[in-house]
């Protein structure tokens, strides 16, 4: 699983971000990009010592300043499930065929009665 898929799936979820300087930011993820630049809303910021707090309505964090992000445990299953579904769709769209290898009839060639095949689906 790609770290960025996890982050994208974390949109609108609460998270804790620690920066390289030790500051932490607690808030809900609004958006993110491939550099891990992120925007958070309803943010509680603490200083590196953890003894001072600030409340911010929204903030933008440059990805390169982040040390780590802590996200809800439940996201792992959500992303795994999404990936399984995407994989199945891809397989069916390409026209999987019963028996895996060695059923050349279903491959190549335009049109024809077997076009697209039946797809293997998952399990069973």
């Amino acid at each position, binding site marked *: *699983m*790609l*770290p*960025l*898929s*996890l*982050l994208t799936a974390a949109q609108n979820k609460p998270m804790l971000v620690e920066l*390289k300087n*030790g500051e932490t930011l607690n808030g809900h993820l609004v958006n993110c990009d491939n550099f*891990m630049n992120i925007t958070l809303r309803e943010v509680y910021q603490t200083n590196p010592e953890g003894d001072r707090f600030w409340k911010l309505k929204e903030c933008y964090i440059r990805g*390169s300043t*982040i*040390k*780590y*992000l*802590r*996200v*809800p*445990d439940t*996201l*792992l299953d959500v992303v795994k499930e999404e990936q399984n579904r995407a994989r199945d769709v891809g397989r069916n769209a390409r026209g999987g065929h019963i028996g895996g290898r060695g059923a050349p009839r279903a491959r190549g060639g335009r049109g024809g009665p077997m076009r697209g095949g039946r797809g293997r689906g998952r399990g069973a």
Partner: protein
Amino acid sequence: MSSLQGYVDRRVLLVLQDGRAIVGVLAGFDQKSNIVLADSKERVYSSDEGVEEIPLGLYLVKGEMICLVGELDEEIDKSVDLATIRAEPIPPIRYG
């Protein structure tokens, strides 16, 4: 090519540039060595108390922060009583 692929779904030890040691299951990684750790715990070492394990849950660590990723031998790891271990914490990386 060197890759983390062989560590996926295994329990690993991460050492970060700030000296933290985190154990967890490697759930994913990318080209920049950003790492997804599931069920992770920080191990806090100290010279006058046993090792404290702090549960952290699902973690996404930036590749730039990572010094080391090592596969844990779970058998050996389980046989170690962390409460009896006394060790100096790893200091953070210093530049210059």
